[in-house]
């Protein structure tokens, strides 16, 4: 029968709107306003999953985000989201959910054999069992553990949903919309402060939504909530955020909220994101996170049908669902009595109220008596039976000495338990506040404030509806005053009923069972039992941090909100130390599991990182160029013709450049304009080279070191005027070189009269290289004499190119005659197309970064970051010629004198030629003297660059080799998995060593 456990009336569900959904393929019905958990319970379904380690049947334990058992997968748009808490999944038409961690079905599960084998899986068994043989780890243990690990199955497809991001500010953030939170929001809003009120649940109101035993200002709690929300909604200074979890409290009142926007809707608006991340800066925060009920730790306390008492009450009062026909209420505190009364009033038979205490309050006992409810005192549950649902509970009588004698058993189909209440101090703890043990409350409570926050209501251990309301109002007033300086006359609503109760218990309850045969669960999600915690203590774990990691207690998605206090009490008893000496683990972000999508927001795919494109990008794309990523830049890698692979294309491009000419987009090079009366002096200090005597119109290669003496960047610098230099840097080094220059200018040499400006994006740069380069550019250049005498290698001049202003450099990174044409960025595409046409006419071609790399390697030109790795000095790179010998100081000069940098046996840049000219070495390969070095032999160096060189008709490589320059002509070896490759050491310049071609 459909929804046979639904009450006749009442609750926050909409009985006019029936919703059909499926669970493990079964079609079921519920109502709008249900959670998946309440709808399942309405259909009499308690068993919803199998446990993590022992695969034991598990039911719904709670009604909130702390739920450890009822984790389900929900299908949506063809994919499945795993591990959603059924207590938080809102029901919608067509919802399709599955249970997890079972095979082949929830009812019959092969993995359940683990439960019978459980003596083999004690706490820490991973550490003990899989130690050796070591070789078994990769092939045997790890695959098995991986296959068995985890609960749900990860989704298979990329996340098709969109996630949004929002930055926001407010005066007062109120987290939680129960009595304390609503009162705080009302009070703060009254002062005119900008208030944000968020709550993780779909409906605001918190515990008031299931409170029927009280009135507020003469109204039912639910009516009062509705009025309060109407009041807040009408205020411009208030933002209400249901379905929004404050999951992270960071420095300076920076709070992260995750707002769930479409997950509860059957057919979501495609324009809406699934979730929204709020990055909120609140002047003041009121934490009204409430408290959660502790399960009781007795043997077999995990059978479906066993649930926290207040959850049972919530399902009844808020969702109109009876958790069973016959319930046993086991408790150590007063609040569960109210659950028993509410259920009895709704027609649920109460098998008994079994209270651990010898003398529960008389008042409660007489109410029970009036309802004809059997009451057992000094009574504990010592076990349960029932295969997939509880059918019987064993009871025990606790004597004054603490021993337990059997007190018979009771048939029941549900068991509601309460070990007392634990304040939710997670956010306070995240704000870096230290919790303090409060003996009277029997709980850890917020201590000193580190940030501008205050806890209110039961999250700081305060109970009783009227007190909680008053505390909320006061917290709201205080927060608003602190944030805005303003206050207002606030009338506190007055509640009667729902008074503070007493009682509570911590740790494992006494029983009369054989300890070796029963399991009393502490952490349901991780299958940690009381026995495991005791075992951990016996095996030497004395701090709660160690016990936690050894047993995994408190490491579930609720971060131990349900289990920590019980585990702590068990450990404290086993250690015979006070609770406070055992310590409490720290609560960290996120409060509840948060999707990766929420963290990523829109920074995915094309929006993950900006893409920088060169002026030739469109042309290169149209010409089917292959691209490579260089930092954020998309650079043309090579330009294949029909049928060419990378090797054929690069070989052709290389030959054309050497024999005729080539066109290359060099716009990505970093460019810095250094200007001012002290510009030359500044460069003198920043670079190894001398600059003062560099003539206007001349260029020089510059080498930049750090203070330690290592090469960090290089580039050509042209002197445009006495007080103006055009500095180029490597593509990747542009921002750091600029930052380094700024650093020295601002902090070390503020007396220098120099300005620097990044001009990387201002210029488009086309490089024309090859014997016919001059011929190709000549028709377009005006105002510059291009003849070799007037404009020799390493010259710079300003003029026009195609009628637009240009800085023309005669420089070469290929060893051929070369020009680099710098024009304003907006003319870059026009200049590129003009040159491409002209170059093609002369038999040349465009070339990409791969050809550029080969051509420069043939010439032995280094690339910073490829030949250097932050430990290479100019001498190592064979570039002492770049150091101004007469300079007294420059950045890195003193560093170069350090003992290790002038020591023998440093690695030096050399060329390598393989004996077999066809073999191209792997970049990064290690180099040794011996062909078959013994295991553990340190390498003498490594290959930094390696290519097939068309100009040489063979492979070439550059390498850093210990004492390399002295080894010229010697044979070394590059050991590889399939054999050692013999190589001969040469100088690093393979092609045109005298450099005649540059000056053509």
């Amino acid at each position, binding site marked *: 029968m459909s929804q046979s456990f639904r009450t006749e009336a009442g609750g926050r569900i909409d009985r006019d709107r029936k919703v059909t959904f499926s669970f493990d393929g079964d079609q079921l019905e519920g109502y709008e306003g249900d959670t998946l958990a309440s709808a399942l319970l309405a259909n009499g379904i308690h068993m919803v999953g199998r446990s993590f380690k022992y695969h034991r049947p598990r039911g719904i334990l709670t009604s909130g985000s702390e739920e450890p058992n009822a984790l389900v997968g929900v299908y949506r748009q063809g994919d499945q989201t795993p591990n959603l808490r059924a207590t938080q999944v809102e029901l919608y038409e067509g919802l399709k959910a599955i249970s997890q961690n079972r095979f082949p079905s929830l009812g019959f599960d092969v993995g359940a054999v683990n439960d019978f084998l459980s003596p083999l899986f004690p706490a820490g068994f991973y550490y003990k069992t899989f130690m050796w043989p070591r070789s078994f780890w990769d092939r045997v243990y790890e695959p098995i553990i991986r296959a068995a690990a985890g609960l749900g199955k990860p989704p298979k497809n990329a996340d098709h949903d969109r996630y949004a991001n929002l930055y926001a500010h407010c005066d007062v953030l109120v987290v939680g919309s129960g009595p304390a939170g609503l009162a705080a929001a009302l009070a703060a809003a009254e002062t005119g402060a900008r208030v944000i009120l968020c709550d993780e649940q779909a409906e605001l109101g918190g515990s008031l939504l299931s409170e029927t035993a009280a009135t507020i200002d003469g109204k039912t709690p639910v009516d009062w909530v509705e009025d309060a929300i109407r009041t807040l909604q009408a205020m411009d200074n208030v933002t209400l955020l249901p379905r929004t979890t404050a999951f992270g409290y*960071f*420095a*300076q009142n*920076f709070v992260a909220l995750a707002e769930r926007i479409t997950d509860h809707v059957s057919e979501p608006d495609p324009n809406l994101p699934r979730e929204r991340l709020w*990055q909120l*800066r609140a002047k003041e925060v009121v934490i009204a996170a409430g408290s959660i009920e502790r399960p009781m730790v007795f043997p077999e306390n995990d059978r479906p049908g066993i649930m926290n008492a207040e959850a049972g009450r919530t399902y009844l009062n808020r969702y109109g669902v009876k958790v069973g026909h016959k319930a046993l209420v086991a408790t150590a505190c007063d609040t569960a009595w109210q659950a028993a009364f509410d259920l009895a009033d709704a027609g649920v038979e109460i098998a008994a109220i079994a209270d651990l205490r010898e003398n529960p309050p008389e008042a409660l006992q007489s109410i029970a008596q009036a309802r004809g409810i059997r009451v057992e005192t000094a009574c504990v549950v010592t076990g349960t039976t029932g295969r997939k649902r509880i059918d019987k509970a064993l009871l025990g009588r606790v004597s004054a000495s603490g021993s337990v004698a059997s007190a018979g058993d009771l048939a029941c189909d549900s068991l509601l338990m309460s070990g007392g209440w634990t304040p939710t101090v997670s956010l306070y703890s995240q704000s*870096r506040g230290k919790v303090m043990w409060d003996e009277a409350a029997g709980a850890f409570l917020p201590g000193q404030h*580190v940030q501008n926050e205050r806890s209110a209501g039961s999250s700081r251990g305060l109970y009783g509806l009227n007190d909680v309301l008053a505390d909320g109002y006061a917290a709201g007033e205080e927060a608003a005053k602190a944030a805005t300086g303003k206050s207002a006359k606030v009338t506190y609503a007055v509640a009667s009923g729902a008074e503070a109760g007493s009682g509570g218990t911590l740790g494992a309850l006494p029983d009369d069972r054989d300890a070796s045969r029963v399991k009393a669960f502490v952490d349901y999600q991780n299958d940690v039992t009381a026995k495991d915690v005791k075992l951990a203590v016996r095996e030497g774990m004395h701090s709660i941090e160690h016990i936690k990691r050894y047993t995994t207690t408190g490491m579930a998605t609720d971060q131990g909100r349900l289990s920590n206090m019980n585990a702590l009490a068990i450990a404290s008893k086993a250690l015979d130390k006070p609770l406070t000496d055992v310590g409490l683990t720290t609560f960290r972000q996120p409060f509840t599991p948060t999707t990766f999508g929420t963290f990523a927001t829109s920074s995915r795919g094309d929006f993950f990182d900006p893409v920088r494109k060169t002026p030739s990008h469109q042309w290169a794309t149209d010409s089917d160029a292959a691209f490579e990523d260089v930092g954020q830049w998309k650079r043309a890698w090579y330009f294949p013709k029909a049928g060419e692979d990378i090797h054929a294309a690069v070989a052709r491009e290389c030959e054309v450049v050497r024999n005729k000419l080539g066109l290359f987009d060099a716009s990505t090079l970093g460019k810095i304009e250094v200007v001012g009366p002290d510009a030359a002096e500044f460069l003198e200090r920043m670079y190894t080279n001398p600059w003062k005597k560099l003539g206007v119109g001349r260029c020089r290669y510059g080498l930049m070191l750090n*203070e*330690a003496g290592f090469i960090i960047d290089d580039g050509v610098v042209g002197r445009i005027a006495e007080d103006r230099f055009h500095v180029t840097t490597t593509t990747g080094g542009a921002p750091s070189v600029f*930052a380094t220059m*700024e*650093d020295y200018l*601002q*902090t*070390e040499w*503020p007396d220098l009269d120099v300005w620097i400006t990044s001009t990387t994006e201002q210029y488009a740069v086309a490089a024309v290289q090859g014997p016919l380069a001059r011929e190709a550019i000549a028709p377009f250049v005006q105002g510059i004499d291009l003849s070799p005498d007037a404009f020799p290698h390493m010259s710079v001049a300003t003029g026009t190119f195609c009628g637009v202003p240009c800085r023309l450099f005669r420089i070469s990174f290929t060893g051929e005659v070369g020009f680099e044409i710098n024009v304003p960025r907006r003319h870059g595409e026009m200049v590129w197309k003009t040159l491409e046409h002209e170059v093609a006419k002369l038999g040349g071609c465009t070339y990409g970064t791969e050809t550029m790399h080969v051509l420069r390697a043939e010439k032995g030109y280094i690339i910073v970051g490829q030949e250097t790795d932050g430990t290479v000095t100019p001498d190592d790179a064979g570039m002492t010629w770049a150091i101004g010998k007469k300079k*007294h*100081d420059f950045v890195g*000069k*003193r*560093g170069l*004198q*350090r*003992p290790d940098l002038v020591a023998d046996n440093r690695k030096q840049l050399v060329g390598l030629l393989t004996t077999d000219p066809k073999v191209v070495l792997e970049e990064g390969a290690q180099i040794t003297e011996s062909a078959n070095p013994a295991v553990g032999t340190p390498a003498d160096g490594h290959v930094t660059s390696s290519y097939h060189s068309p100009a040489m008709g063979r492979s070439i490589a550059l390498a850093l080799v210990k004492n390399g320059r002295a080894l010229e002509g010697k044979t070394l070896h590059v050991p590889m998995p399939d054999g050692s490759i013999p190589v001969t050491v040469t100088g690093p310049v393979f092609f045109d060593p005298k450099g005649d071609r540059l000056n053509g």
Partner: protein
Amino acid sequence: MLLIHCPYCGVERPETEFACRGEAHIIRPADPSTQTDEQWAEFLYLRENPKGLYAERWRHIHGCGRFFNAVRETVSDKFVKVYKAGEPKPDLEALAKEMSA
């Protein structure tokens, strides 16, 4: 995310606008050639790592671009003081006393 006060802009801005550049008041010697190897190694590599107040260099890199100095409490991550580059290092001991008072 921290909020940092830029002494040049005169405003508090989020941490993402800034870059930390390590310990402050490490001055490059006027004439490095006079430094012994030990002195130079100290200048290059040796830095304080205190639990407590620490004077650091920060740059408002996505703002005004200026370098400035800040005293940060390394346990609480709180910025105690910001000041312009070139201004003298505050007396950290006195500051700590002032804070605990």
